[in-house]
């Protein structure tokens, strides 16, 4: 297995905004249905929908071998959303991710990433997602 160790100097790193993601009505309905949420006409997304956009980018960042984070052994420890408004069908949103913290505690690699979702046109903020992931050391299992 990977013997990589987390590079603590990656904390503070920021990544440029993604290409715009266009939020589809049927995607909202699909997401809402799994959560038992009232989907209605699919116009307004459930509160945790922004993770769909953030997770994709975070995974790409954490898969970078230079970072030394073993995503295969990672579990999600904390999650937080701060929303200016709900995500709606038709939104075109970019995500910019920053690595807020990166440290190794008792052999477990802990990273916190923040994703900023903004309107692609004009850059108005919509939501921030803050995620802490822990990649467990192998003998701790």
């Amino acid at each position: 297995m990977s013997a990589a160790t987390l590079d603590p100097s990656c904390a503070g790193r920021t990544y440029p905004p993604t290409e715009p993601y266009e939020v589809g009505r049927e995607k909202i309905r699909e997401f809402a249905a799994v959560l038992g949420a009232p989907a209605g006409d699919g116009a307004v997304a459930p509160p945790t929908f922004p993770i769909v956009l953030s997770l994709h980018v975070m995974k790409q960042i954490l898969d970078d071998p230079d970072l030394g984070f073993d995503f295969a052994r990672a579990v999600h420890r904390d999650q937080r959303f701060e929303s200016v408004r709900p995500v709606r069908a038709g939104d075109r949103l970019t995500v910019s991710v920053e690595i807020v913290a990166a440290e190794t505690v008792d052999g477990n690699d802990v990273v916190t990433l923040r994703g900023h979702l903004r309107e692609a046109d004009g850059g108005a903020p919509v939501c921030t997602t803050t995620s802490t992931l822990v990649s467990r050391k192998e003998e701790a299992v």
Partner: protein
Amino acid sequence: MSQVPRPGDRLPTRTFRYTRERLVAYAAASGDHNPIHWSDSRAAAVGLPGVIAHGMLGMGVAATAVTRWAGERATLVEYGTRFTRPVLVPDTADGVDLTVDGTVGDVREDGTVRVDLTVRCGEQKVLARTRAVLAYDR
């Protein structure tokens, strides 16, 4: 909800059934295709006792309990949790049930409402410090 919430108000208890089918559906809806959420052997390979649910699925259904209670006029402006215990989902038709309870913890001067949530699988809490802050359209 027809009246202004008050501290101590309780949300109706809601139960969500977790099956392997639901995990696969959440993987597709969310784009989180991590094999620990659908393959016993891949889960075992990283030291887990079996397939576990996505933490975000639990956070998502807990939000559903809040939005169903609060109605369309409310927006979750803040929402946070810690994932403290993985939920093992057996490969059976019945799966396991997740139960969500909530209490209004605070009604602030600006009109926002804090709801404190408890999410259990059986008797065990699976999330901690699960709090949602709601803002209402006027």
